[in-house]
């Protein structure tokens, strides 16, 4: 058995256990050393990912290909930067416990398993390994009622979606006779009509995955959890886990169910349109910036699903370009959210940003860049992200979806630009506290990427093309 194929995951899992031990044994606070060790583990794992060869292992349960590597690098980068942001925030909020980095590590491990899954069983395994730490993290601020409520809500709804998904998997297994992706693709790609049982099973699986990417109508947990959970946790939710969720849905729909594209296309189109519209309109009335970001994500989900719904190579490539660009914008925006702190207390209303243009011009500039990029204004990276999913949709004749996408972009520009307006034109209600160095680091890195992506997009485009080629063969 070629177990070395799964070296990144193995390294991560073993270092997770080791760090857990290292955190428990000493009597003093081990948060900072543990965080650093987790970052080191991410780095090591990332290095192994980059050198990972193509292949299949563990009896066809595990696959390593260009798509998996592409997504894993993004997940690891997102997780590492989110953890960096969390370090200062957790300390300031009194949440400084060494379990937090370990939980992040195991959640990330779950995502990597999910990304490399080549079987419904390993997919579910990865998904649960991701979800369980996330439930805990959402309720991490356990003395805070809102945080506990968020954790509980997330757990209940997450359990529901996991149940639905598992039920769907059993249906697929029952009617198709296999859970292996390659064999499923063979069965569904044939000329014989697909039985209704398999179709229902696919719908249930899609439901579970849509819950993870927060597509309408399975999005309802998102605003509440984003608002209730600690900002540092949300920074992880909104960045790394989104990448994992996108990877999972793309892997499943384009891989084993690729042959049944006519069956699920309609549903994804519907979810995409509904997400874009709801994300655009519901965000308008928000005053809490974390809720705003939640709806903003729902709207982005719509765009991602649009690329997926098109189903062509160009569409999938659009998704794979959208993902890293979104990751960077989102990390940047959350670095600002994490830094929103006045007189030692976290603040999270949009109005709290008033006058930031004068009190902290650098951060305001960064936030303005992210907001403009999310609104899709050229030449920032967000514009290209939207362009690369919109073009295939237009070329493939999905006019309704394309028109909705453009119009919802216009509507969402309103609330993004409102943030910019508040920062630059409203009277200041007092300066925010000085931002920690971790925030400055993330802010500068993501800001530069978002700002200057258009100068050399070629490496990313090439990587995305390779990943898509690996996915659809």
């Amino acid at each position, binding site marked *: 058995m070629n177990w070395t194929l799964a070296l990144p995951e193995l390294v991560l899992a073993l270092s997770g256990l080791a760090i857990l031990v290292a955190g428990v044994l000493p009597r003093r606070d081990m948060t900072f050393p543990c965080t650093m060790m987790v970052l080191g583990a991410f780095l090591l794992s990332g290095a192994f990912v980059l050198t990972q060869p193509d292949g299949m292992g563990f009896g066809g349960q595990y696959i390593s290909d260009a798509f998996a590597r592409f997504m894993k690098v993004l997940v690891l980068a997102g997780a590492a930067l989110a953890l960096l942001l969390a370090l200062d925030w957790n300390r300031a909020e009194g949440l400084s416990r060494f379990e937090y980095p370990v939980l992040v590590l195991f959640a990330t491990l779950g995502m990597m398993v999910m990304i490399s899954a080549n079987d419904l069983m390993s997919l579910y395994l990865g998904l649960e390994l991701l979800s369980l730490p996330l439930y805990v993290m959402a309720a991490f601020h356990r003395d805070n009622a809102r945080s506990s409520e968020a954790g509980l809500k997330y757990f209940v709804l997450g359990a529901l979606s996991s149940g639905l998904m598992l039920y769907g998997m059993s249906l697929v297994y029952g009617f198709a006779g296999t859970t292996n992706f390659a064999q499923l693709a063979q069965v569904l790609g044939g000329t014989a009509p697909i039985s209704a049982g398999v179709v*229902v099973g696919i719908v249930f699986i899609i439901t579970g995955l849509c819950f993870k990417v927060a597509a309408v109508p*399975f999005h309802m947990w998102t605003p509440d959890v984003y608002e209730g959970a600690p900002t540092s946790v949300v920074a992880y939710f909104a960045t790394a886990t989104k990448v994992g969720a996108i990877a999972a849905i793309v892997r499943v729909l384009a891989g084993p169910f690729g042959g049944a594209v006519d069956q699920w296309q309609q549903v994804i189109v519907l979810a995409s349109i509904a997400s874009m519209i709801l994300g655009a309109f519901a965000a308008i009335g928000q005053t809490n910036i974390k809720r705003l970001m939640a709806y903003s994500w729902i709207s982005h989900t719509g765009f991602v699903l649009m690329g997926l719904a098109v189903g062509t190579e160009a569409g999938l490539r659009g998704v794979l370009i959208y993902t890293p660009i979104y990751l960077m914008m989102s990390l940047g925006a959350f670095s600002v959210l994490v830094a929103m702190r006045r007189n030692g207390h976290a603040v999270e209303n949009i109005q709290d940003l008033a006058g930031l243009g004068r009190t902290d011009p650098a951060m305001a500039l960064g936030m303005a860049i992210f907001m403009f990029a999310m609104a899709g204004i050229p030449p920032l990276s967000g514009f290209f992200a939207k362009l690369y999913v919109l073009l295939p949709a237009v070329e493939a004749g999905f006019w309704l979806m394309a028109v909705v996408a453009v119009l919802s972009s216009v509507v969402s520009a309103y609330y993004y630009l409102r943030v910019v307006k508040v920062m630059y034109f409203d009277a200041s209600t007092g300066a925010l506290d000085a931002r920690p160095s971790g925030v400055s680091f993330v802010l500068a890195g993501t800001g530069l990427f978002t700002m200057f992506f258009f100068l050399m997009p070629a490496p990313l485009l090439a990587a995305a093309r390779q990943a898509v080629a690996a996915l659809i063969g």
Partner: protein
Amino acid sequence: MFVGAVFFPLLGACVSGFLGRWLGDRVAMWSTVFFMALAAICGLLAFWQVALSGQPQTVVLFTWMQVGELSFSWSLRYDTLAAVMVGMVTLISTLIHLYSVGYMSHDATPSRFFAYLSLFTFMMLMLVTADNLVQLFFGWEGVGLASYLLIGYWYEKDSANAAAMKAFIVNRVGDLFFMLGMALTFFTFGSLEFDAIFGAVQDHVNDVFLGIPSLELIGVLLFLGACGKSAQLGLHTWLPDAMEGPTPVSALIHAATMVTAGVFLICRMSPVMEFAPVALAIVTVVGASTALFAATIGCVQNDIKRIIAYSTCSQLGYMFFAAGVGLYQAAMFHLFTHAFFKALLFLGAGSVIHAMSDEQDIRKMGGIWKKIPVTYAVMWIGSLALAGIPFFAGYYSKDAILEGAVAAGTGVGMYAFVCGAVAAFLTAFYSWRLLILTFHGKPRADHHTMEHVHESPLVMLVPLLLLSVGAITTGFVFAPYFIGDAATAFWNGAIYNLPAKDMMEALHHAPHWVPTLAKTVAISGILLAILIYGFLPHIPGRVAAAAPGPYRFLLNKWYFDELYDRIFVQPARRLAVQLWQVGDARIIDGMPNGAAALAAGASRGTVRLQTGKVASYAFAMIIGLVVFVTLFLTGR
């Protein structure tokens, strides 16, 4: 030298305009005067060399643009026609600059004024030295722009703004025709360079465009363009209103620049116009009608500057019908002499206004001739020249034009002669009406104003005296060159006359009764004015009362403004209001406003879905699942 004559004013304008604040007003003023003086020296030398010594030349500056077959350069074309204009414009403009130093001494921003004034002169020089129609058009538009700036110089006055806008808009109407004419010229000749056009006229005599001979159409279009700048009947309405600008501006616009541009254009295009007899006939009729029409209005106006403005309008009519009958030389000659005496009259009027504490209504003047004797004397000289009294400048040019009109021997020629003769009578009449009402009789101004009546400072009087010399001498000095025996050598081919017509020869054989008649009507006009306004001051009022209709008709300038208001302005305004209130406010604004309201409503609706209850969230998920399954199963 040739370049200097044109570009020194631009230099002056830049110095005064951009550095004026830094240099201070006095330095800025005098620097523009200095540069204008340099330009005038260059201009006079150029005039000497080109016109009197017969050495025309073209100075190419650089290529301007090249678009396909269309290519033209910036170049200064100095032939006699241009040299006459350059010499005259620079000289008069210098005197006006000098005069303005005194006149504008109490103004708040004289550096801005002088910058505009120099810019205006530069644009006019650009226009007259153009080597192609596009460069000419550049100067043409530049003059329009500068006139807008100058007329609206006192921008805090509503009436000045309105007048500036009116001048600009009316000029745009003319410009439109000019541009059409240019386009058709390019279409016909494939070039806009004068040499190329003039050389190819013979080949295109029989060209037809839209069923009309091309040359005729070009002639008419260019003439309509000229009408705008030169304030001919129909497009004249801006000229009297342009009096809202400071008086030196009026003098510059009316005497040497701007209004003469149209006449210049027709003379410049003489090789084309000569082959367009119908267009020339139109020029003649419109010119003659303008001469008469403006003179009638001049008789009843009460604003000293407006009277002179209408006289300009009328004199321009003379120039046009002279050109119309083919006597471009006479038209240029009248333009030349007119520049001197009209500048003199305007600056004299400015001196009067200055003396009367900015009073412009001649009904409130009177009895001031003893207090401002120099101004009084120069106004007499200017009026004598304007009326065409022998040995003053206007006599030579106006006589030549009237003789030419008769000598043309055509119906339109005779019409022009009759109009011209009547206008000459009216011109003499209103000139002396102005003189007598302004300077003689009992003082009608209030005591306070009368105490302040004073002669203008030396800096204003010197230009007046120099212009008086011009108004007296230019006639008999230059008559031999412009229209006399030396004319052929003088013009040196700058103006083209159809050999078959040979108007220059016909001019010398005009009937002898014509000059006699001209002198008679002029003198009788003077005598009538002296009689009525000097000795029987109650007559005018009684005449006006006896014929209220005609009087009001004249006083309201033949109701041209009202007519245009009714025909063009009000419908356009109504349309604009409709477009604004319905098109813009309701439909165009309505759409985004409605969309915004819709978005806000949708936002409220979607937010309400977010109840916060886990059960309802789970319910939504299940509903979604059901919808998906249904879709799947029905969509197969």
